């Protein structure tokens, strides 16, 4: 579990991180979103014990990053937004080097390195020189390196930046697997849509301030107070539209072929009542569900028009 309380980092008069509060539960994936220069990397470096906070506290599994950095380092795997390469070092030697830097005995680190290289699909490359790997492979190797000492928390700074679509999908797959292994993961990106589908919760940071955090759905409702529902009917659409219009909490209905997008201002407990009304009329509903939400819209509303890649 990661707990950040009132975290502040100042460089002279410039405040890079301003009173950030955050809690990430064990075994969940948190997406840290914000434009470039918003304070993501600074926050991550403080979590990784690589930077001194000006004030506030960061605790990893109950241990303070400033008071007990060594204990935190044992529990945290850090992957920066760049990839450092040593010339003339082979993949398995690279893993072995970091394993020994964490004080792991020879046999243990050899075993862990073998398993992790398999996990990131680099088992066949273990005798290649690190600098000959493709960018995607280096990124995967870097991820394997950050896991060598079996940390509970993984902190990944822009892991998908500069990767081609295939490499991104591979990284996402690995992260899902890691989540299955009950790792807590913090992952940052300036691309919101990249994170939304794999994260349990997200936080949006702008100018050093955490503007909003929670589940994507939650954030959507908190911003607009509305939920978007997507419905699909076999036929009798006119009838369905008329019925929906009569409902007091329905605000807007958009028709697209056999589908309807309904803007709904009620809570979840009102939602099932709406479904019941439709079913009671024996309308042929094929699907009924909350839309993922328009992430671009969320971001623009939250960050007051700061430019951002989506």
């Amino acid at each position, binding site marked *: 579990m990661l707990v950040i309380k009132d975290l502040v980092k100042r460089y002279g008069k410039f405040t890079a991180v301003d009173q950030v509060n955050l809690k990430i539960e064990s075994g969940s994936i948190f997406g840290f979103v914000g434009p470039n220069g918003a304070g993501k990397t600074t926050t991550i470096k403080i979590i990784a014990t690589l930077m001194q906070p000006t004030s506030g506290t960061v605790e990893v599994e109950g241990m303070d990053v400033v008071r007990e*950095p060594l204990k935190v380092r044992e529990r945290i795997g850090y992957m920066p937004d*760049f990839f450092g390469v040593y010339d003339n*070092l082979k993949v398995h030697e690279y893993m072995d080097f970091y394993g020994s830097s964490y004080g792991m005995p020879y046999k243990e680190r050899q075993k862990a390195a073998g398993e992790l290289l398999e996990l990131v699909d680099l088992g066949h490359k273990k005798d290649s020189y690190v600098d000959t790997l493709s960018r995607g492979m280096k990124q995967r190797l870097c991820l394997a390196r950050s896991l060598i000492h079996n940390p509970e928390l993984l902190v990944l700074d822009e892991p998908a930046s500069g990767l081609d679509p295939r490499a991104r999908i591979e990284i996402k797959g690995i992260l899902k697997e890691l989540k299955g292994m009950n790792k807590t993961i913090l992952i940052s990106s300036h691309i919101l849509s990249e994170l939304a589908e794999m994260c349990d919760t997200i936080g949006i940071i702008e100018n050093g301030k955490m503007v909003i955090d929670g589940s994507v759905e939650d954030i959507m409702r908190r911003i607009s107070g509305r939920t978007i529902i997507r419905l699909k009917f076999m036929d009798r659409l006119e009838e369905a539209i008329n019925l929906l219009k009569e409902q007091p909490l329905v605000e807007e209905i958009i028709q697209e072929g056999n589908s309807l997008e309904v803007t709904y201002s009620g809570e979840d407990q009102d939602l099932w009542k709406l479904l019941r009304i439709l079913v009671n009329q024996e309308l042929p509903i094929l699907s009924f569900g909350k839309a993922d939400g328009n992430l671009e819209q969320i971001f623009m509303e939250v960050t007051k028009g700061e430019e951002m890649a989506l």
Partner: protein
Amino acid sequence: MKKWLYNPVMVSELKIKMRGWRTAAAVTVYLGIMLLISYLFFNLTFDNTYGYGNTFDVNNSIGLQIYTTLAILQFALIVLITPAQTAGSISGEREKQTLDLLLCTKMSPTGIVMGKLISSMSFIFLLIISSIPIFSLALLFGGVTPGDIVVLFAFYMITAFAIGSIGMFCSVLFKKTVTSTVISYLTIFVLGILTAIIGATMLQSYYYNSSSVSGMTLDSYTPFVFYLNPVTGLADILARQSGSGGNLGVAGVLSMMFGMGYYGTSNPNTGGMINGWSWSQWSLWIRNAVIMLSAAGTLLTISAWKIKPVRRGFRKKHLANISK
């Protein structure tokens, strides 16, 4: 390997350095230069010493002359090569963006600095050790003992360590390897020249004052700045080994090396290298080595402190300031 001896950074660096042809080529070129110069010197001296029917003298033998030339040449090469080896050690990690990765492992900053230093120095040590056969040539002609070579090589390693730690310190202070390398060379040469000039001036004024006061002896005075300059130790070792410690003395060798006038001071310890427990009873090169090692230790400690990302003491002080 014993756990406390095992330094991951050192092991990995050694592996990287010794891989490929570069190190082998560098050693070959280095030894080639040493051989070429000793060959030229041998030819020249042989003509001068024996070409005109001169008699053989141990203190002026070819062996001793080749030894002295090689000793000074190797010293100069070490001073020239060492900064380049260490000045990029930490800044290079920064440039490769691997320093952060190292710092967030369980390795201590001291471990990182020492691992880097030892692996960088290993190349210098390799050069020094591989030059032993060339130095053995001097033994063939006599005038030098194996013990002399051991003392000289020990002093080389200490000098390399001291110069290496200046390079290391610069690589911690400056972000770019180019800047760090330039500043290391500048620092080393300015330090070398300044200590020589200041020391010589102090020696001269001492000589001037003491000769005006009757009854004051001329020996046992070494300006402190000379201890910061490894040329002092080298001059002491060579003077001692050439047997001129008594009459020419360190100041004599020094003044010859720096091209200054001869001040006539003599080495107070013409006997053994360590004659007792007090500072003045140690021979000059040992005092020089002790001061250089202490300075190197200080620089390395500061280097390790500088790369430490999170410092508890700092934060407490900082928080106290904020709360005021």
